[in-house]
């Protein structure tokens, strides 16, 4: 790993400087993660008084539990839909903002708002808009014949958390897409225009391929966001319901642990989730450096 050519020499100072960061990391990250791994091999009795080593039984139980598969399915649908919706909309907005000359800054000022809004708050805002008795969005949907009720219909509940989660992510994607677009040299567009390519053709044959590194990076970021940062959206609005319709993985691990008090089961879920984040982080760091380019 790189350092400076000129460095300081000191026996204990560097360790002292690293100490606070290391202490927090070890106590609040590594230790609990280790504990999760250990606990995933144990089971508590009904009173929570004794621990019994059960080997892989917690994992076997987890992977033979239909509700866990249901939760995986819900999470995947949610993550894909949220990423697709947030990325498509922001790419569209960024492409337009990059094209128009006047007013880009004013538009940008408004479009960055949702970044500041907490996921829980975004959830509550959209729940209010989709409230079946007084919500404006629900009213508009009713006009076109769609009955929207997130407390009764699983599809409505899923749509609600997807819209809320995607809405919050628009700012972030917009800023990165805009930066990516502005990095494409103008001469490329001009050359294409001279060859007779119109704006739409230019977008699909030039902009989209040149933007692929940004798109890939944002796809990973959005997936990580949708899988792991959206507990608040679910908890503040649908509470995983109706039934298990919106019980995404991070919601289930909390619920089984804190409400169901299933220590071993929750720990096993934690281990699976940690493996997932690790895989996504590796993808992010290995492939983003290399860049997907044509």
């Amino acid at each position, binding site marked *: 790993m790189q350092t400076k050519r000129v460095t300081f020499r000191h026996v204990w100072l560097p360790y002292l400087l690293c100490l606070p960061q290391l202490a927090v990391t070890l106590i609040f990250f590594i230790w609990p993660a280790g504990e999760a791994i250990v606990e995933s091999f144990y089971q508590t009795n009904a009173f929570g008084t004794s621990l019994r080593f059960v080997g892989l039984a917690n994992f076997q139980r987890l992977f033979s539990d239909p509700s866990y598969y249901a939760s995986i399915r819900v999470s995947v649908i949610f993550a894909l839909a949220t990423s697709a919706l947030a990325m498509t*909309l922001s790419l569209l907005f960024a492409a337009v903002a990059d094209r128009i000359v006047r007013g880009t800054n004013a538009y940008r000022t408004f479009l960055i708002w*949702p970044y500041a*809004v907490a996921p829980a708050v975004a959830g509550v805002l959209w729940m209010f808009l989709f409230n079946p008795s007084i919500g*404006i969005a629900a009213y508009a949907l009713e006009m076109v014949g769609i009955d929207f009720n997130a407390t009764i219909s699983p599809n409505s509940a899923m749509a609600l958390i997807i819209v809320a989660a995607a809405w919050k992510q628009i700012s972030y994607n917009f800023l990165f897409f805009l930066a990516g677009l502005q990095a494409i040299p103008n001469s490329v567009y001009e050359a294409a*225009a001279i060859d007779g390519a119109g704006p739409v053709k230019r977008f699909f044959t030039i902009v989209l391929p040149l933007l692929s590194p940004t798109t890939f990076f944002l796809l990973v970021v959005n997936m990580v966001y949708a899988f792991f940062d959206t507990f608040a959206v679910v908890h503040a609005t649908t509470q995983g319901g109706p039934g298990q319709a919106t019980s995404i993985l991070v919601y289930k691990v909390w619920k089984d642990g804190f409400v169901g008090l299933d220590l071993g089961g929750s*720990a096993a879920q934690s281990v699976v989730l940690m493996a997932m984040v690790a895989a996504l982080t590796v993808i992010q760091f290995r492939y983003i450096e290399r860049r997907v380019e044509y």
Partner: protein
Amino acid sequence: MVENRRLLDILGHVLMLFAVALVVFPVWVAFVASTQDPAALMSGTVPLLPGDRLIQNYSEMLGTGMASAGAPPILLMLGNSLIMAVGIAVGKIVISLLAAYAIVYFRFPFRTLIFWTIFITLMLPVEVRILPTYDVVASLGMLDNYSGLILPVIASATATFLFRQFFMTVPEELCEAARIDGAGPLKFFWDILLPLSRTNIAALFVILFIYGWNQYLWPLIVTTSENLYTIVMGIQRLVTVADAEPHWNLVMATTVMAMLPPILIIVLMQRLFVQGLVETEK
């Protein structure tokens, strides 16, 4: 722009206005709802223009809260959120600056190991190891106090990377010159490196303040005392009242107050915010 097409320009502005509406409309509706009296939100749709209860609703929520829903006054929750957000932002920045400085400007045994240990925190978001982290914090006696709210979330791989990246771009000559003039490592850090990092620190502060302000799951599980509720998690108390429609006008007053500080910061410090956002992801 390559060619001049009037129609396309107009279409572009229409689309951008739609984008702005998509972003602003939910916030506007929340604000409007927060100024109504309860009767206006009982049936029909929400009005689109503000009502006349702005001052009344807000002063009620700020001062007394909603005891029936177990929610403390907003002022108290805002204070808690502020303490938590500033604590998390400052904590992350300070410990990351120190660690990055050690990693870049010193050669010492286990340097790489320490770097990777910090890196691993990226793979362990609190959501995925929620129960054991709670156990650790509980066994350290940190439930229901500010240290429990702040300390467990202040490790930061991204901030450490950002500062490491920035320190690598600082010219070698600066350090040489400082050493020739007899400056020790701490003096160099304090008098030269810190002033140079000012913009980076400010940009990062904006991002981390918002991150801290918007924390939800962590405050939810480590606080049981109402005196420690933060505003973002307190809203959920108001919404999920058992078997009844929530008092939407008061809930929305709370949401507006919860959104206002981070939105103001982002809009007023837009340049710093964009810089911070793009740099933390490098």
